């Protein structure tokens, strides 16, 4: 690049060229025609940019004007071609001469003569609307109309409030909407810090004055939406990319029948055969059972289950085992976590150091666990999470049922991203935009396998996603997520007292009555205490006790079950495309819609018309239904691939959240499509998909690596074996608890607290001497339990679509030296002793059975016994030194249990426990 730059500088400095006056029509336009029109022409307008007519040229594209006359280095046109960003990388760069011509033309004033002359750009109503939205509507808009004034429409401005019309056409100095700002009365000083509204800038005020001076004329604003005409920004060619066309089911290839169990095997084996590799042998039954139990429940199998399976020699023993695991309530706890990663579940708001705790987030967590246990069809699962509030008329109090509450709770999916609008410094537009951006990022990557967030600032560089389509998505969510009509996540100190909260209190009629009753009782007791406190002669401690009770009850009074929901309010602000993603640079107005590349480009987006007791846009419901239609190109492929990835460690598409051009192409495209179509054909059932995958010969293979594997399928892309896998953070902790008999299996409800030690160690607190499963431990971003962090549970920013499985020294250090693990080893030893008695050989066998579902090999038994005996020796030598007076037998017991605990601690640290074959 530096070379080109040098040449171009040389070039323009040549006197011969300086002498010649460059004109646009003669010198510049031909270069653009040859090099740019293909993508920025009349018909195709990439980045919403056309270079053929002068008006479009002056206006620029989605990133704004192209030229700053006289200043090539500040002109986007020059920047793009000079940096080599344009023409795109598959095209040759412009020649130094061409770059030189354009540079010199801009330098000498960018004269457009010979084309059409430039006109001064006037300020229009279209420029004023975003400005008013940004600065005024929080007090004069949908929620509040202070001074009886609403500024959202031209007619309302004209109508004005109790002090008269907002403007006097032609007279800015007499127009209230100008003078209030000039006199610094608006926004009110007291509100500036709290509301997030900042005063108009001088430039904005000038624009407003200019518009009023020019007559304050209205303009009908037309939203850019998909129509039945073809889309100039996305070509039909671009729609042909493999993942943008609906999946098609092709018949599985024919392969040698004996080695296959299911259709999946046929697809996989046909590829393996080409590389001269066979399936690995089937793993042994114990391995299979353990693998399946971890895969479906995140815990080792129970002994009964294992025995029944190993003794069941009927043909359907295996599917029966899978069914039993799928029916276990532990299934939802394991696979719910999979979904919570994608949603970015957290019990805190993030974004600020305070990281305030998010009340009631857990209700969404519980909803997810139940949905997995109930095997809710994936399509419904998505629709409820994306638009549950539009499915039910929740505002009609009399019709509230558990179903209604569930649907609202499901929308918690859209409320999981980090939210910085609930903390100091408060609620700025940029903070709100971050929330919206993250929510759309989660939806597009988790559900659609698209990196839409690239198109927030500019048209996607690789996929055909115009910036416009990103903002159409923004418009879909606008009925609920509106940066100009914002609701705070929950109550917090020094917030704008007028702002509304996004926690809903929706109760069944009977619940409502019960809560009311309870509250009346509480209030009654508070009143009694108040009266008692007024009596004279109360003892000090009595007073103290009453006051404490009073405080507690008052707090209780304020608590009532709420839902952290997202709901449409039926009054969306207009949606502007933000140039370069900057909310202070509004561009064109867009309406709701879906990515054009996933449609035929000639299908208007139609919000669902809802007749509920409160207004709703119906946009999200329409979006959710589009996303879950049977022939959607991405939805089924993406989820099938994710579940495959959970089982095999790698998706058929390795880049599981990027199905676009920069993603990895599928390793088995026909299999992916076959699974996706089959999934939809069978009611979007995830449990069925598990059964399908887990009954395949592919899944049931041994995980042993052979020389043939190493030479012909070294990284297992062809699936010639089952990959060995390290337990996840949650599985490590839950398994240790189960093995030590310290697992409390109470599901749901408020998350369990954590303890933060002064040196930074974070540990979950036990409930009645036991601990609940990891999914129920409070997930506060800044207080993640240390063991989770060590074993790769990442911070949700905004979510996690793929866990890593690192092998780092902190893991070993934690398992060796952490107090809780040590204590669990003691508990494990106590259990072993009570189940196996005092015989050391028996103890070792029993410990292996409990922790690893198998008996030790001779070698393992010997190593274990050796360890127990060495520890016993050390302990008795030490005991002999220090406490000779203690009774012999008691010391002997202690020594045995301590030695056994030492061995158990080793077993909890062993690779056999932490890795699943």
């Amino acid at each position, binding site marked *: 690049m530096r070379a080109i730059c040098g040449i171009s500088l040389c070039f323009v400095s040549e006197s011969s060229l300086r002498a010649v006056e460059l004109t646009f029509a003669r010198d510049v336009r031909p270069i653009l025609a040859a090099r740019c029109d293909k993508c920025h022409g009349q018909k195709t307008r990439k980045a919403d940019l056309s270079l053929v007519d002068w008006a479009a040229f002056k206006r620029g594209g989605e990133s704004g004007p192209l030229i700053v006359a006289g200043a090539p280095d500040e002109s986007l046109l020059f920047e793009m071609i000079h940096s080599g960003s344009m023409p795109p990388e598959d095209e040759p760069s412009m020649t130094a001469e061409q770059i030189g011509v354009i540079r010199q033309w801009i330098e000498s004033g960018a004269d457009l003569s010979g084309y059409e002359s430039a006109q001064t750009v006037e300020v229009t109503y279209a420029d004023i609307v975003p400005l008013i939205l940004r600065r005024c509507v929080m007090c004069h808009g949908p929620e509040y109309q202070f001074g009886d004034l609403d500024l959202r429409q031209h007619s309302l401005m004209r109508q004005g409030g109790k002090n008269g019309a907002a403007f006097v056409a032609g007279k800015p100095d007499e127009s209230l909407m100008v003078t209030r700002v000039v006199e610094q009365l608006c926004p009110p000083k007291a509100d500036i810090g709290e509301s997030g509204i900042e005063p108009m800038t001088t430039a904005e005020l000038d624009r407003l004055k200019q518009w009023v001076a020019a007559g304050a004329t209205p303009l009908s604003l037309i939203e850019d939406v998909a129509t039945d005409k073809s889309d100039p920004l996305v070509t039909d060619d671009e729609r042909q990319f493999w993942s943008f066309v609906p999946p098609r089911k092709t018949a599985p290839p024919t392969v040698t029948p004996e080695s296959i169990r299911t259709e999946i095997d046929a697809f996989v084996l046909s590829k393996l055969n080409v590389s001269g590799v066979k399936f690995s042998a089937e793993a042994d039954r114990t391995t299979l059972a353990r693998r399946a139990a971890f895969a479906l429940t995140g815990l080792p199998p129970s002994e009964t289950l294992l025995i029944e399976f190993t003794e069941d020699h009927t043909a359907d023993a295996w599917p029966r085992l899978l069914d039993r695991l799928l029916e276990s309530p532990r299934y939802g706890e394991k696979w719910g976590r999979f979904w919570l990663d994608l949603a970015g579940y957290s019990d805190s708001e993030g974004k600020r150091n305070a990281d305030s705790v998010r009340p009631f987030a857990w209700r969404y967590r519980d909803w997810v666990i139940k949905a997995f246990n109930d095997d809710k069809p994936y399509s419904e699962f998505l629709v409820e999470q994306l638009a549950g509030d539009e499915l039910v008329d929740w505002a009609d109090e009399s019709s509230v049922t558990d179903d209604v509450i569930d649907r609202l709770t499901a929308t918690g999916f859209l409320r999981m991203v980090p939210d910085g609008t609930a903390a100091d410094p408060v609620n700025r537009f940029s903070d709100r935009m971050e929330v919206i951006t993250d929510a759309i990022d989660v939806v597009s990557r988790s559900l659609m396998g698209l990196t839409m967030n690239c198109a927030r600032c500019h048209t996607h560089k690789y996929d055909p996603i115009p910036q416009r389509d990103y903002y159409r998505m923004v418009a879909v969510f606008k009925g609920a997520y509106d940066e100009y009509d914002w609701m705070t996540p929950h109550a917090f100190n020094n917030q704008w007292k007028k702002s509304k909260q996004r926690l809903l209190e929706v109760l069944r009629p009977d619940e409502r009555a019960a809560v009311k009753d309870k509250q009346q009782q509480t209030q009654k007791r508070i009143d009694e205490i108040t009266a008692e406190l007024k009596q004279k002669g109360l003892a000090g401690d009595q007073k103290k006790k009453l006051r404490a009770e009073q405080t507690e009850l008052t707090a209780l009074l304020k608590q009532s079950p709420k839902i952290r929901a997202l709901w449409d309010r039926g009054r969306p602000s207009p949606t502007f495309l933000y140039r370069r993603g900057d909310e202070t640079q509004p561009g064109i107005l867009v309406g709701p819609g879906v990515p054009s590349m996933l449609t035929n480009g000639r299908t208007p987006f139609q919000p669902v018309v809802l007749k509920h007791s409160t207004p709703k846009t119906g946009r999200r419901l329409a979006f959710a239904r589009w996303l879950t239609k049977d022939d959607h190109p991405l939805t089924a492929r993406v989820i099938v691939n994710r579940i495959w990835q959970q089982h095999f460690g790698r998706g058929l598409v390795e880049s599981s959240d990027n199905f676009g051009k920069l993603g990895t192409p599928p390793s088995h495209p026909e299999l992916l499509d076959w699974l996706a179509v089959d999934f939809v054909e069978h009611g979007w059932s995830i449990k069925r998909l598990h059964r399908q995958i887990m009954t395949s010969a592919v899944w049931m293979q041994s995980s*042993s690596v052979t020389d043939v594997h190493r030479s012909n399928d070294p990284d297992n892309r062809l699936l010639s074996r089952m990959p060995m896998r390290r337990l996840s953070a949650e599985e490590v902790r839950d398994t240790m608890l189960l093995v030590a008999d310290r697992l409390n299996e109470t599901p749901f409800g408020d998350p369990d607290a954590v303890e933060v030690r002064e*040196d930074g160690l974070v540990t979950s607190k036990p409930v009645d001497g036991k601990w609940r499963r990891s999914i129920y431990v409070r997930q506060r971003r800044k207080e993640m339990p240390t063991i989770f962090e060590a074993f790769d549970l990442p911070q949700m*920013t905004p979510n996690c679509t793929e866990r890593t499985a690192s092998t*780092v020294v902190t893991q070993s250090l934690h398992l060796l*030296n952490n107090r809780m693990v040590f204590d669990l080893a003691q508990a494990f030893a106590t259990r072993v002793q009570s189940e196996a008695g005092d015989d050391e050989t028996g103890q070792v066998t029993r410990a292996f059975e409990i922790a690893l579902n198998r008996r030790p090999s001779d070698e393992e038994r010997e*190593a274990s016994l050796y360890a127990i005996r060495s520890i016993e020796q050390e302990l008795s030598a*030490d005991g002999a030194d220090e406490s000779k007076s203690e009774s012999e037998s008691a010391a002997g017991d202690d020594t045995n249990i301590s030695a056994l605990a030492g*061995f158990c601690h080793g077993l909890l640290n062993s690779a056999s426990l932490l890795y699943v074959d």
Partner: protein
Amino acid sequence: MSINQHTTRRSFFRNTTDGMFGAALASLLSDDVYGQSLDSGLDAAQTHFPPKAKAVIHLCMQGGPSQVDLFDPKPALKKYDGGEPPRELTQDAVFENDRRGQLMQSPWKFRQHGTSGAWVSEVMPHIAGEVDELCIVRSMYNVHPNHEPAIFKLVSGQTFPGHPTFGSWISYGLGSENRNLPSYVVLADPVGRLPTNGVSNWKSGYLPPVHQGTRMRAGDSPVLNLKPDYQELPAVTAAKRDLISRLDRIHKKSRPGQQVLDARLSNYEMAAKMQLEATQALSTADETEATQKMYGIGNKPTNEFGQRCLLARRLIERGVRFVQLFSRGQAWDNHSNIRTSLKSICDITDQPVAALVKDLRDRGLLDSTLVVWGGEFGRLPMSQGDHKKAGRDHGPYGFTSWMAGGGSKAGSVYGNTDEIGYASVENRVSIQDWHATILHLLGLHHEELVFNRNGLGERLTHQLETRVVHDIIA
């Protein structure tokens, strides 16, 4: 490690499609089955171009050291003392309050020092003595006037948590020269509370957790979980480790070709080595009395900070890449009583910091070690509060930081604030410029040190306009 090959942003993406880059990243993420490499993502790595520095010591002076009282003398403040700052100089202010107040001259005298003749106030006599090693940048600015966002910006380039801190980026880019110690060590105040923003000051965000800062302290267990958190005979611990090793070898024997199991075994060995090496690194018993005295160890105000400065040198000597020291709490946040409060934190840090620079030089380590000193912002030139007990409010619009060693331009002063020291006006240096320059000294190009996440190539300088400040590089 192909991340360090000379790649442009474009070819980065192209390589990702090839899968080559993806594989390199994956091997950073997990010690997996790629070739013979069993490293933890921390093996010392190639740089983009020959580096000047190999390691960094970041002296993080949280709170906002007052530039006009330390390194940026403003005679005009004497002239206008008690007057309002001129409106045309306060254009950058975010809050109206930041434009108000009476200008206040510095209570301390400034003098030129060394052969470079740089000005330093009398409140930092020791650092003044080392001024010929310093590269003083007077034209820094930050984007937020509150501590929390400004500190996030200083450490991660963004004003909110979640992005990797620059120590993590450096660890990610350079790996470690000593496998038995973490590559990024934090020496926070051992007695007081955590610094503002807590552990977020050294988080690795979306980079692999191995690049997170590890908090160390002198004493029994220098690192979390490094030693048993329970009572046990050493011989028993040894027996347990022996058992784990035996069981794992038996397990591995029947699973040939599962390389992750080798990595696991070596981790248990490394855990033992780390215990030894970290304990040694964090004990200053073998330092001479003269050295200890130079750092102010044994004298009340300087004892504790002096200890930590000395530990920083010891860690650098052992191959740690990035050592981060935090001064006590928000000791530089001198809202009131600046005459005593600023003096007091200078008394605590001045001698140890100067000793660290001198000690590194004397041991031939200064050329390869970049020392970076500064806060999240500076202070306004106006007074705050009652004039007798006046302090100064946060001043993000212009402030001073300095570098020493590591290829920075010794004995130089770069950039300027306006006449009253309110805002940076000449050769302005943003936080991302500062980061890019530090990376440059380490042989890393800020646009090429990239981590692929969510379809975006994330980097320390984000998508912000950034320049490497070549004028402060020797």
